[in-house]
């Protein structure tokens, strides 16, 4: 439900970044989203496309990297991906409640290219 405001924040960050490169335009933005971030990818893409069109960024591609929930074992220091809420360390079977990633909601990078009159923008995926 809050995908619209998330999409808006992503696009604002892209606009801000693009202003640092006069004569260029942003073609792609990559974000990292954790499985605990409570975001729906389809919905985010939809909102992103609608808003990007309104903000004259309509050919901007959105890449989403999904980040699984990872816990760290205090005993053996191993970091492992948690599936089905199984918090036991696969190595030493210790219960490892310390969550080290999985709630990311981060901008990774923006790709910009020099604007040429003949350039054809990429389709959003």
């Amino acid at each position, binding site marked *: 439900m809050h995908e619209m405001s*998330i999409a808006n924040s992503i696009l604002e960050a892209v606009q801000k970044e693009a202003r640092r490169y006069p004569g260029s335009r942003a073609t792609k933005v990559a974000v990292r989203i954790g499985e605990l971030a409570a*975001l729906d990818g389809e919905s985010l893409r939809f909102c992103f496309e609608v808003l990007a069109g309104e903000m004259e960024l309509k050919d901007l591609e959105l890449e989403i990297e999904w980040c699984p929930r990872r816990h760290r074992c205090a005993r053996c220091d191993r970091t492992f991906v948690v599936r089905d*809420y199984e*918090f036991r360390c696969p190595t030493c079977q210790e219960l490892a409640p310390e969550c080290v990633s999985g*709630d990311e909601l981060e*901008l990774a990078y923006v790709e910009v290219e020099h604007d040429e009159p003949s350039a054809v923008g990429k389709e959003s995926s």
Partner: protein
Amino acid sequence: MNRVPLEKKVLSENDRLAASLRERFQQHGVFCVNLISSPGSGKTTLLERTLEALPRGSRVAVLTGDIQTENDAARLKRFGFPVKQITTGGTCHLDARMIERHLADWNLDDLDILFIENVGNLVCPSSYDLGEAAKIVVLSVTEGEDKPLKYPSIFFKSELMVLSKIDLLPHVPFDAHLAEENARRVHPEMEIVRVSCMTRIGLAAWLTWLEQRRTAYLAQKPEVVI
């Protein structure tokens, strides 16, 4: 083509405002909690019973969020503490800017506890830091025991789960142990209190949790302020 690394949070503006709120709360010794639940699970009633139980003269205030209406603020104002309604006009969550704006004419030195009642929604409020010391999730026994598994984000980020409406347990097919087990599957260190605002069972445990958590918050204050 030029790839520019950004390496920052999508909600960095909200996070920046929330960090500044958190610092202000710490400076003024205000213990702020953010109550989150689906609509109708009893956040406002829990706050009514809480305000009713507090001694007159307690330095407590409430910000209550809804998409429309001032109904909750009207209910909560009856207890004589400062209460403000935040009407989001369609937005499904509160954000740090709304909190900052609505705090503008309150003097934080006059407060010990600030309750924020978020918009009824188990999803979106979990993404928005409001500068609170603790998130609290309320789950009522008229919902499903599997809510923590379906909406893990908010259960993962909350320190306390208030299991509400427990007076209805004899009348509904709700397995309270299973609900608590599910909450701890998502968040192994989750603290839990069972409360009925009708019979008032569990209210003392809830008030004790608040007081103990506030004491812990004040004790850690000097470290955090550095």
